[in-house]
């Protein structure tokens, strides 16, 4: 299978991929919800980190544990766990993310019936020396706890090798994103989504090889890519689990050329220093990377970052895409929109749940928005 086909197929059925690949790779799989999950430590322990995106089906079992005013990512993830759809997981890793995921961790531990469970209570504040010291201590304890739980020792050289693999993946994803920004016709926007989704669930060394091959293909394609004539769109928000959104935007006359999503650029931005203490290096990436709104790094860090992205990628319009009931993103929206208003960039706000509203309604909103640009 050519690399893009492979990534598309994984993205389409990540559970199927996990179940089918597990016997061959003989690695335990651990689920996670957050871009602050220290994947390098998991990879070094011989684990496949598997991102959970929320369920595709209806939510029924999770209703016995979570109120309706909890976001669909948390409810959907629990639903899949309770239904047994995630039975290929040996457990899950919960970095402290937000109020909802913090509680999900307890509910998951009490009800999901998995072998292992890890809480990695990282600092929320990322601006001080004491926060850095604490983060390093938390990552070190996680390294120890994970090793004990899986009965493996995680050496510095295992970590260094894992860091190298993850840096390679980040570098390739970054290059593919840059290529898409330079030549929007090189890949469909929905393919960018598929690549990212696959990147967060595949066995990472295998993924790196696929991305390498894809990169080689894309360079050839880029030389042949012609202008699409579409408007340049950036999506900003938390997680996007709706490939249809990308189709609709393209049909309305827009290319998604960049994003500010935790399942997009926030996943791969920033390198881990390959020299020196590996755990300190992992911590330093988190302390320097653009923040998730559930973390604190000054009061305008995200606004300034977005302004810079819009300029660097000549963005025509920004779509804010949030999960309903996501508090951290909800609080940031008015100020981020304010930054965009000041920069003269039109914006559109979409609050979505697991299931998208009627297709017609969505198309119309995108068409109106793109026409306005």
């Amino acid at each position, binding site marked *: 299978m050519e690399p893009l086909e492979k990534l598309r197929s994984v993205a389409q059925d990540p559970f199927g991929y996990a179940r089918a690949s597990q016997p061959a790779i003989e690695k335990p799989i651990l689920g996670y919800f957050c871009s602050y999950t220290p994947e390098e430590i998991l990879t070094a322990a011989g684990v496949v980190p598997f991102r959970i995106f929320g369920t595709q089906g209806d939510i029924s079992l999770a209703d016995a544990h979570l*109120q309706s*005013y909890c976001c669909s990512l948390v409810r959907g993830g629990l639903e899949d766990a309770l239904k047994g759809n995630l039975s290929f997981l040996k457990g899950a890793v919960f970095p402290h993310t937000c*109020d909802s995921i913090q509680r999900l961790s307890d509910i998951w531990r009490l009800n999901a019936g998995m072998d292992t469970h890890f809480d990695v209570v990282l600092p929320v504040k990322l601006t001080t020396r*004491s926060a850095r*010291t604490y983060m390093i201590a938390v990552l070190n304890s996680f390294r120890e706890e994970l090793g004990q739980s899986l009965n493996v020792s995680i050496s510095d050289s295992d970590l260094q090798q894992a860091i190298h693999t993850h840096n390679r993946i980040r570098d390739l994803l970054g290059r593919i994103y840059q290529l898409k920004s330079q030549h929007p016709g090189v890949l469909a926007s929905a393919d960018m989504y598929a690549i990212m989704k696959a990147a967060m669930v595949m066995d990472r060394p295998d993924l790196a090889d696929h991305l390498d091959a894809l990169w080689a293909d894309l360079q050839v394609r880029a030389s042949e890519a012609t202008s699409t004539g579409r408007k340049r769109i950036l999506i900003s928000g938390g997680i996007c689990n709706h490939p249809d959104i990308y189709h609709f935007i393209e049909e309305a006359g827009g290319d998604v050329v960049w994003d500010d999503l935790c399942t997009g650029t926030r996943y791969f931005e920033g390198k881990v220093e390959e020299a020196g203490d590996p755990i300190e290096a992992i911590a330093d990436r988190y302390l320097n990377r653009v923040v998730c709104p559930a973390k604190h790094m000054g009061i305008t860090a995200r606004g300034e970052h977005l302004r810079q992205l819009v300029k660097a990628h000549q963005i025509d319009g920004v779509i804010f895409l949030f999960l309903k009931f996501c508090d951290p993103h*909800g609080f940031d929206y008015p100020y981020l929109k304010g930054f965009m208003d000041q920069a003269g960039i039109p914006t559109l706000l979409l609050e979505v749940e697991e299931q998208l509203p009627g297709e017609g309604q969505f198309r119309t909103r995108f068409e109106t928005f793109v026409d306005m640009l």
Partner: protein
Amino acid sequence: MSDSSKRTDPEKEKRKIKSVQKMKEIMTNYYIEAKGAADTGKKVAWITSGGPVEPLIAMDVIPVYPENHGAMVGASKMGIDLCEKAEELGYPRELCSYARADIGCAVTDGGPIGGLPKPDFLVCCNNICGTVMKWYEVAARYYDVPLFMLDTPFTHREFPPAAKQYVIDQIYEYIAFLEENCGKKMDYDRMQEVGRLSLEGLRLWQAVLDSGAHKPAPMTAFDAFFHLALIVTLRGTQVAVDYYRQLRDEMQERINQGIGMVPNEKYRLLWDNLPVWYRTKWLSDKFAGHEACLVADTYTSAWSGVLPLLDEENFLESMAVAYSQVYINVSLDLMIDTLRRLIKKYDVDGLVMHSNRSCKPYSLGQYDLQKIVMEELKIPTLILEADMVDERSFSESQIETRIDAFMETLKS
């Protein structure tokens, strides 16, 4: 109105808590002083309800609590208007109604006291939620003032040494922040005295709450919601100590005289989560109508709940560690321990949980807690879906039906 209805009912008079008047006086004076801070040259800091206020008191800074103000907005039934103001600015309706109401007040100088005094700086402690961090970031941008974030790691199973060191380090960073923003050094003797007063206030508040264990209970959780204000806003002052001593003595006197708050108290209930501020009277009457008394709650006991972790000899550092482990900054396992203890201590017949749309860390997980309480402790439970300030999330008929049905179960 006929003459007879104007006459006071001696039975009702007897049940009224006399200290209420004093409390109202103290709170009025407090807000007058806070609003007049610009004239007296005192600094004003906004601080979250679970935050360490004691260093502010020691530095002679006036602490102002947007959450206490949010409760006032709710009790004054001004929540919808103010929340809608924030929604017009783009804040989603799903966000905490304290935060929305506060943002609504800031931009309109509206609300029950015409807006809060503007802050000179902000102190935010995330031991109660991640929401306060986002809310205070909004305030820091709006007022263009410095923000100090005190980050208190959540306890899932334990509070490890690294977390202890992290919060202790931050207490000294906090003091350095205060020294810079106040232009003077911390007086550590004064700080020690404030710490002593804080502890004394907390012990007295706990003694007030303990009185609910007596049958009949001399006060209810609804009274505790009202009298809580000082342990939040003036903790560490002599005023709070004197007031709670008076209130404790009044409760003791009521116990001596056998005065219960609910006439013919038959059923004793435990409340979970924040109050429904705009319906406290209605709910209180509703339960009293069933001869049910809410004798305790998990909310007002959260402040004094960490007393065993506080050390008068090492107040500052023990405070950092203690405040990190308040009731909602811990896992469901640890919360169930508290519920078990309260159910036993107050000899409770049922648990009423307010599923509060505004407060995810408090409310998510309640269904699991409910299940454990019912299965393990065999205590009937009731979940009321509502919101602490936003009345649009309160359905009177639905809640009334649920309370009636729950009380029928208890009585049968």
